[in-house]
């Protein structure tokens, strides 16, 4: 079993909050992914069993949202915003530079499992472009040198 008993208890408590238990699916996915790092087929099956739905419904939701992952991820998520204002301020060059620095392409994870690099449509920090997000932390008004430094400090 991938999902712990404690997590199962929490998911059941979430389900009780909604008129249709399925409403708690997002909450459940967040909870589980926090423990497991990604939602594998096996995990999706366990969640589906908890909700009494088909696992394909779980995978639909997982693939719909950017912040759920159906593959193993690195220890840190680095998301570079590439929407219009950031792009006008050099975000695409920044992303290219970071790809070269890490030796991977956006969407991939470094071999040592340290960093998963990705681009994001909009992170809502247009006034501080270009910017990136490391896990839960925003880093703003970047240039390539500053961004590289931030990445190098990650464990």
């Amino acid at each position, binding site marked *: 079993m991938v999902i712990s008993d404690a997590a199962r208890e929490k998911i059941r408590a979430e389900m009780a909050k909604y008129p249709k238990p399925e409403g708690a699916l997002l909450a459940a996915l967040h909870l589980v992914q926090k423990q497991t790092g990604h939602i594998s*087929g096996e995990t999706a099956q366990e969640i589906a069993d908890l909700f009494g739905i*088909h*696992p*394909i*419904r779980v*995978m*639909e939701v997982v*693939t*719909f*949202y950017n912040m759920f992952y159906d593959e193993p991820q690195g220890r840190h998520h680095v998301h570079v915003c590439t929407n219009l204002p950031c792009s006008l301020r050099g975000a695409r060059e920044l992303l290219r530079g970071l790809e070269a620095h890490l030796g991977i392409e956006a969407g991939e994870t470094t071999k040592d499992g340290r960093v998963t690099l990705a681009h994001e449509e909009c992170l809502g920090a247009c006034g501080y472009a270009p910017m990136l997000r490391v896990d839960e932390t925003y880093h703003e008004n970047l240039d390539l040198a500053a961004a590289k430094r931030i990445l190098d400090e990650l464990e």
Partner: protein
Amino acid sequence: MAKLTIDGVEYEVKDGRTILQALDDLGLLMNGVDVPHYCWHPKLTIDGSCRLCQVEVEGFPKLQIGCNTPVKDGMVVHTKSERVKHAREGVMEFLLLNHPLDCPICDQAGECKLQDYAFEYGVKHARTEEPRRALKKNVDLGPTIKFDQERCILCRRCVRFCREVPKTGELAVFNRGDHSVIETVPGMQLDNPYSMNVADICPVGALTTKDFRFKIRVWFLEEAPGICTGCSNGCNVYLGVANNKVYRYVPRRNDSVNDTWICDVGRMTYEEIGAPDRLKLPAVRSDSGVLEAVPFAKAIDAAAARLRSLVERKGAGVLAAVASAHASNEDLLVLARFLDAYGIRHSGVTVRRGDSDDLLVKAEKAANAEGARTLGFEEAGPLAKQIAGGGIDGLIVLGHDLLDPAYLGGERTLAKLDTVIVLDTHVSALERVAHVILPVRHAAEKDATYVNHAGRVQRSWPVVEPSFEAYADGEVISRLGAALGLPGFDGKFDVREVSRSLGAAAAAFRGIDLESVGEQGIPLAGKG
């Protein structure tokens, strides 16, 4: 009830319906009032994803989707305004953004809603020069269906069908926005007893059945109404006919019988019509024990001669007749008259039984078991025992369900009979013991009525002609009666006349005949 005005005409519609549902209830949708649509389907839940059914509703600042806008009393709807036309053009342009221009090699061409609506409501030129989405082609979704991901317009009808009708849920939409694709989960196949319906409801060429694809262009097909005879549900179908050949069954909507669906097994029974094992030649067993092909009239005379000789020796009490439940009401009524006129007391109906489900598939694997019972034919189980026990010397058999394990379990017990006369559509082991063989017509080759499991009388039409000499069972028996000189038999068989006298034979048929049954069928008296 609510008053609904559409394009200046006022209608009374049921409460709680959406605009499209109300139009569908009135029988007007795409049949008087054109509101083009892709994702909405009368038998599936509402999705609201294709946006094509937008209409103008007075009092609403923006256009509303007809499929998901509930009708309010006094609502005034416009479906032909400039705004509506403009919106449709916009939606069509979006739907066509990524659709490949491969109509010439697409098997859906000719019955493609994207093609039809693009012609009818679309703009004539694409304004984009960006490359179209390159996705998976020719994907094997399962044993019955091929999938072309590029042609898919993501209406989700197939996804909803799998979840809501067979409740197997094999398909889903993955990813989001312009990355959305329909797929199965890895390792899972689209494999359920109703899987081929997804090809019918797919408005484009994304889902096609492996059986029908590339067999023939659909514009060569005449879609003739008929019924599936695979089980006692009697699902309504269109038979796709060209070159005197049936190429496919597709379900025909009948809300009292099969909604808009048909099971995969039933759908494939079209193959029986032109099957290589059709019984094609009338034959008579010679004195040396060999079956010899003879002209039809000679075979009838031979049958009459054998029966006459047997009756002279032992009387009509040793004769029996067993009809399979594939025989139509008209065939069975003529058989009943024959039995009366000849004084044959032993008779019964055979029905092969098999799997059933709670959707469409019924256990009785023949079209007319209920009709046979209504006309007074008894289950032939006891009679089969009597035949096996040696109490019968002469047998007239319609169809070969008598060989089913539930009855004789083979032809061997019939080998000792003095006379076995077989009327059948397909080759079976009965031919090994038959003395006279008379080929008869399939339901798709004759006018006939059948009663389904729920007591609904439905009919078939002759949509193909057999390439060999064959007649309806009723006609063959009429001719046999005439050859025997039976009272009331002149060798003529007018199926309409026989059909009109069903009511006199069984009260439940009163007022019901070939003409009155129509395309949707009518319930037997007391079964409404």
